[in-house]
Structures are given as C-alpha cells and as structure tokens.
C-alpha cells in the first residue's frame, strides 16, 4: 500500500506542478516525502519565522515555543514517550510529511524542518501545540498542517508529531 500511495503521490505532485505558477516550494515538498535527509535545501528566507526570540531561546523540546515547532499542529511527541525526533514506542512514523522553515535563535540560521506524524495509536492528548508560521492551506499540501499525515500509513490513526531538521534553508 505504501508503494501504491507513493505512486499516487508522485503522480499528484507531477500534476500539481503542471498546474502551478509557483511550484518551487511544492517541488521541494515533493522531494521531502519520508523526511528524506537531504543535506541542503534552498528556500526563500525572506519571511522567516517570527517566534518570540527570548522565549524561543529558553524553550526546550517539551515547550510549544521551541524554535523547531514553528509550523507544527498537533501533540509534541517529546511529551508522549518519544522525543522531538523520535516517535513513541509502538507507533509508526509517517512516510510523508509537511515542512516548515524555522529560525534557530541559537545560531541565527533558518532550517527546513520535516513534521512527521507518529501513527497507530489514538491521540496522545498531551502538549497540544499549534503554530502556523508560513503554513499554507491544503491546496499546498507540503506546507499544510491540517491534513492527517498518517493518511498513508497502514494504521492511519494520529498520535503525535515530531520535528526533524532536514537541512539549512539557503537563501
């Protein structure tokens, strides 16, 4: 089923690219499925995240203000038995994800972050965190955090969300 879904996804993204005037970010999102660990991804940083920087600097991975969570919407896996980059035991990571571009106040860089859902158990219910910096509606799915990104998992139940650095967002 996953390979079939990937085939559909690839087909959809090709179609979307054909119908889009501004397909750069969509194309990057397409490349990012499965949180592929591409080292560097060019992306416009003209409108970087605007988290309150003193709070963001102080916040850790169990805080919604943590800098990597700038476009997250869901429950923080770091509060649910996992971590900012690990799904809790007994869940499965979604192979598809949305992405955000977040500013790290510690080093002054912008990073592309992959938000993968962890799937297979019902909602964690702890550390609800909704931030939507540069988040886009569903017609740009690679930037949308309303969709259930467990949708293509064998068990599509949503549990929580991790935030995985993919690379530095270049100008």
């Amino acid at each position: 089923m996953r390979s079939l879904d990937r085939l559909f996804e690839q087909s959809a993204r090709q179609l979307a690219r054909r119908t889009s005037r501004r397909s750069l970010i969509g194309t990057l999102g397409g490349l990012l499925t499965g949180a592929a660990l591409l080292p560097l991804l060019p992306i416009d940083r003209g409108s970087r995240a605007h988290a309150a920087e003193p709070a963001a600097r102080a916040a850790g991975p169990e805080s919604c203000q943590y800098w990597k969570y700038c476009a997250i919407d869901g429950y923080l896996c770091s509060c649910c038995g996992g971590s900012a980059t690990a799904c809790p035991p007994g869940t499965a990571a979604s192979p598809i994800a949305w992405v955000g571009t977040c500013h790290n106040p510690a080093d002054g860089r912008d990073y592309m972050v992959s938000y993968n859902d962890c799937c297979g158990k019902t909602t964690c219910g702890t550390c609800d965190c909704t931030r939507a910096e540069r988040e886009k509606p569903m017609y740009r799915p690679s930037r949308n955090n309303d969709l259930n990104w467990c949708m293509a998992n064998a068990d599509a139940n949503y549990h929580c969300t991790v935030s995985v650095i993919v690379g530095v967002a270049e100008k």
Partner: protein
Amino acid sequence: MVSSARCLAALRLLLALLPAAAAAAAPPPPLAAEHLSVQQLPPRSPHWVWVFDEAFANEIDMRVHLYDGDNYRRLGQIDAGYYSSFNLSPDAATTVVATTYFARGSRGARTDLVEFTDNRTLEVRGEIVLPPKRVQTLPTLFNVAYSSDARLLYVSYVTPAASFGVLDPANRTVLGEIDTAGCVLVIPSGPNRVSSLCESGRLLTVTLDAAGHETGRAMSDPFFDADRDPVFVQGIRTVKGYAFLSFLGQVHEIDFSGEQPRIGAPWSLLAAPEQGVWRPGAQQVGAVHRGLGRLYVPMHKGGEGTHKDGGTEIWVYDLASHQRLARWPMQTRGLTHIIALEVSQDEAPLLFAATDTAQLAVIDARSGRLRHVEQHFGQTPWQILVP
C-alpha cells in the same frame, strides 16, 4: 405566679398545634411510576445549529451536537468517528458524515464511509463505503457536499493525490472518481458541477453527466496568490456562491450560479490604518446572513502565522456596499477567541460563536447583544452549520 401562667399558656398552644405538626411530618404521597422513553425531536426551528466537535484530544471520537439557540439546550448528538467531516442535505432532512473507523477501535482495518442521519430522529439510516482515500482534514464546507438537487454527493479524496468521489446517495452507491490534477476539495454548484481550489490560485471546475461521469473541465483565471496572500479554504456561503477570505483580509466573492464560476473584484475588510495590524483568523472564518447581506468575520491583531488564531472581535459588513457596520469586542462579553461562527438565516437571526475554550455563544445578529453562553461545549467546536 406570672411565669406559671405563661407556662400554662405555652402548653395549651403546643397542644393546639400538635395535630398540625403531626400532619406536616406525614410523608408525601409516593411518586408515580415513570415510563422509560426516547425523546422525540420537536419540529425544526431556524435557530437550531449543528456544531462539529473535532475532539482534538481524542480524534477517533468526533461528534456533531444539535443545539437549540432559543431554549439553550442540546437536542442530541450525531457520532462522527475519526478525523471526520459533515454537511447537511439541501433540504436539511439529512446530516451526512464522512468518516473513518478502525476495526479495533483505535487500530485495525480502516473503513472510510459516509453515513446518513435522519435529522427528524438522529438515527443513522444508511451508509456508503468508500475507497480508503477520504480527506482527513479540519472541517470545511467542501470536504463532503451535495449537488443542488441532492442527487449526487461529492467526497474529497487526498492520499495525498487529490481527486473526489461521486456518490449516488439515493441508491447508496459510489459512481466514480474524478482526478483533480492537484486541486483540492469539492465546491458544489448546480446539479452537476464541482469546483476545486488549486495552488495556482485558480478554480478547476468539472462538469458531470447524469451518471456522475466527467463531461468537461475548465480552469478559471487565477484569483489569489498562494505565496503572497493565500485564501482560507473555509469558504462562506453567499446568495449565489461562496466568499473566500484571504489571510490578509481580502474578500473574494465568487458567483457559482452559472456554467463557470464568475470571480468578483476583491475588496478589503481593512481600512488603510488597519492593514498589517488586524486580520481574519479561525477554523471557520466567517458567516453570511444571505437575506440581510451581512458578513460576520472573527478578527484579531496579529502577523504572519496567526491565521488560526481566533477573533478577539467580530466585525460586521454590508456585502453590497462593503462598508463595515460594527465591531463587536468579545472580551467584554466574557468570551475568549472566536474560532467558529455561523448565523441563522431567519428574520430574527442569531449569531452562534464558538471559542477556543469551547464556549458557545448565542448573540443577537442584528445588535450584537449577547443572549447566552454555554461553557464547556465539547472540546474543540470548530464548525457550526445551519440549513
């Protein structure tokens, strides 16, 4: 001697009162035997609303509450399963819920389906099983929607490839699936047209035949820029179609009454000093009273990334003149941020506003006067519908 006389008088009084006291102490007659029953709904009122609780803390258990805005009472509940969406049939006789169930509760085989609830009884009267592609997203009018004659039902699919299912609700069958080339959602118009929103800022409109098969498709000119100022996908029903608000406060009114959508010139919710300061934001970003021609929008002060923040005020506009008629602060009414909004369509309209702390407020839609507030109305009431 005086005190003895007083004691005697008191004793006489006590003796006189004894029969009355004895009568007062007798147990009341027993309560009559009761009869167990199931409450029947009264005839539908224009002040009934359907309130969708996304149940964000336990999403396999979403539900729709039916609420009476005159008597301030819950009338009943429609269960909605996992990451679901709902809508009303054009005659409001039926609630359709598009949902997903897992065979073992929170796990196991996935079944996607639409369920039809009779709004006279709140009983589920039927279902149609779907391919496991139904869009699992937050509520909009366009996740599941009827054609104007109710002969067809459309269901948005995202796997994340985008398409939609065409269903025959009368015969409980799936007629087919239409690829939408990356465009999303099902905006119904007329008996046989479906439009979808595209990343390019255009509308794709697919025309169907009587069997639900595609007979043609067309793309509109672009009407928004997804990079600079995207539109919310939570369209608002108007007299001839829908209005789409943009993140920065532009109003795009689209007439869906013809063969192809006609996109009106956008206008702004904001006067020049307000631009860049105030903006719309919510899960359900506005409501229109079609008879009065009034638009209600939850507004807040905020910048990039605050489009899901609820409104601290409701701003009221005249759709014909684009003039703002009122600003209604919510804090002074004891309300937190407005996250969903709907208005009844009668001549004594009520505005229903749900907040980010699960309040449900009933407001006079002409004056803004707060009539009632329900506290703890479910967990996350993120969409309200009226017929």
